[in-house]
């Protein structure tokens, strides 16, 4: 019996609770999508996608724990790296004069 199988309340286990939390994070990410679509500036969109990406990383990590799939964590790490690179790269290339960072 691992920790994720331990009960939280009323017969639900930690795994169930974590899955519920992942669903919550997903809802928040969908809310963020509004800003990514509406903008109004390029930077707003990048920002929203960046936050969305961070949420995705957390969701991946929670799923790794809830489903006992440690390999999800590797994906989360790579996703976090790409997310960071995305923000930096787009910030750099949207500015004509360049030179961000």
């Amino acid at each position, binding site marked *: 019996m691992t920790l994720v199988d331990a009960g939280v309340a009323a017969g639900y286990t930690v795994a169930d609770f974590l899955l519920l939390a992942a669903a919550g994070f997903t809802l928040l990410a969908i809310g963020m999508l509004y800003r990514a679509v509406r*903008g109004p500036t390029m930077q707003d969109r990048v920002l929203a996608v960046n936050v969305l990406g961070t949420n995705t990383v957390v969701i991946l990590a929670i799923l790794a724990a809830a489903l006992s799939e440690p390999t999800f964590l590797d994906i989360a790490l790579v996703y976090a790296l790409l997310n960071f690179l995305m923000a930096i790269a787009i910030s750099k290339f949207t500015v004509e004069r360049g030179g961000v960072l």
Partner: protein
Amino acid sequence: MWWVTDDAAESVTDDAVDADSAGDAVDAGSETRPTVVVPVEPSPTLRATVAHVVEAATDGEFSALHFVEIASWRDGDPGSDDRTAEAQRVLERVVAWAEADLDDADGDAGDDVAVVSALIGADEYLFGPDDYVDVLAEYAEEHDADTVLLDPEYTPVGNTTLLQPLEFALSNTSLTVRTAPVGRPTRPERLRSEATGVRFAAMFGLSLAFYFVLGDPLYWFDWVTGVATAAIVSITLSRISLDADPAVPRTPMRLVRGAIYVPVLLYEILVANLVVARVILDPRLPIEPSMNRMRVIVGSGLPLMTLANSITLTPGTLTVRARDSDLYVHSLLPWAREGLFDGGLERWTRFVYYGRSAARLPTPRERGDHAVLQGPDATEELPIAAADGGETDVEDAEATDTAGGAEEEVTDA
């Protein structure tokens, strides 16, 4: 200005022409002979550069030689005394070389050449080529010098790739710039000499450790791939990632003090986050954002990055731009702005990097190193590319659209 800028442009491009025109100047009268400023720093070609300058002086090109060392540190920092003493030794050695060369010169050509040495720029932090050039130009003006002669290997401490930007920045001043035509070792050799073993080892160890956190240190194949990866990383990046050798008392001390700082920072983040969360969830959204400028006294590079990121992590403040030692910080609430000007994070950063004694300094507010750029308390103008005219018209319309059914507001306005 009594110096001629046309002449300067000519001599930058062509040393031979410069020598000729300088010769003419001597014929015209020795009182017009210029003074030359030579920034020095221990380097493989320093001796040859000094010899070249002295030769030029005895040929009648220069009447006074000023050897200056530009301090990359600031007086009062821990260790600054040692570095000052070291710089003085270098300057003494350079002056001794120059005087010996002058004595060796034929006849009495070297008799009326003055040799001066100085340590400059120790009263402030210097960040990039522009700062170095400012200091140099100021010194040159003070001493009526119109020529700067660079050692081809001149690299002030901690700025491994400064020479070219420095030459470029100097070309924007009225000073004549020359680089001593002395043997510059070929580039691959220079790379090899600058990538120190300590840096390489530190980078290698770090990347290997990172690899094994992700992999399995007990599996032989991970050793093969890990060592190969770490080698590639450290070969390509050790000169870029680390600009100073990790030193035994300094680096572990910084790590220890950093470990003290992290919980403090986390607590600050948590408390301030709760305050900002209340503001954001408040239906009235009582925010008063403004842009601020603050001049901070931390070193360039890693300390500045730590401070800027700490400011960003602390809710209510966001570093928008770090330009030399000027930080442009956007604050959401006056409360956060006041906290910023109290300089707590700046003091902590100094504690982490330079120790407890360096953390005692006046707050930015006491130093007067702060300015509000927007809102009713504004003390300075916003240095933004677009003027505050109607440049956001399109955005305005779009942004108001997003508020949903706010078109009435637009027509009102």
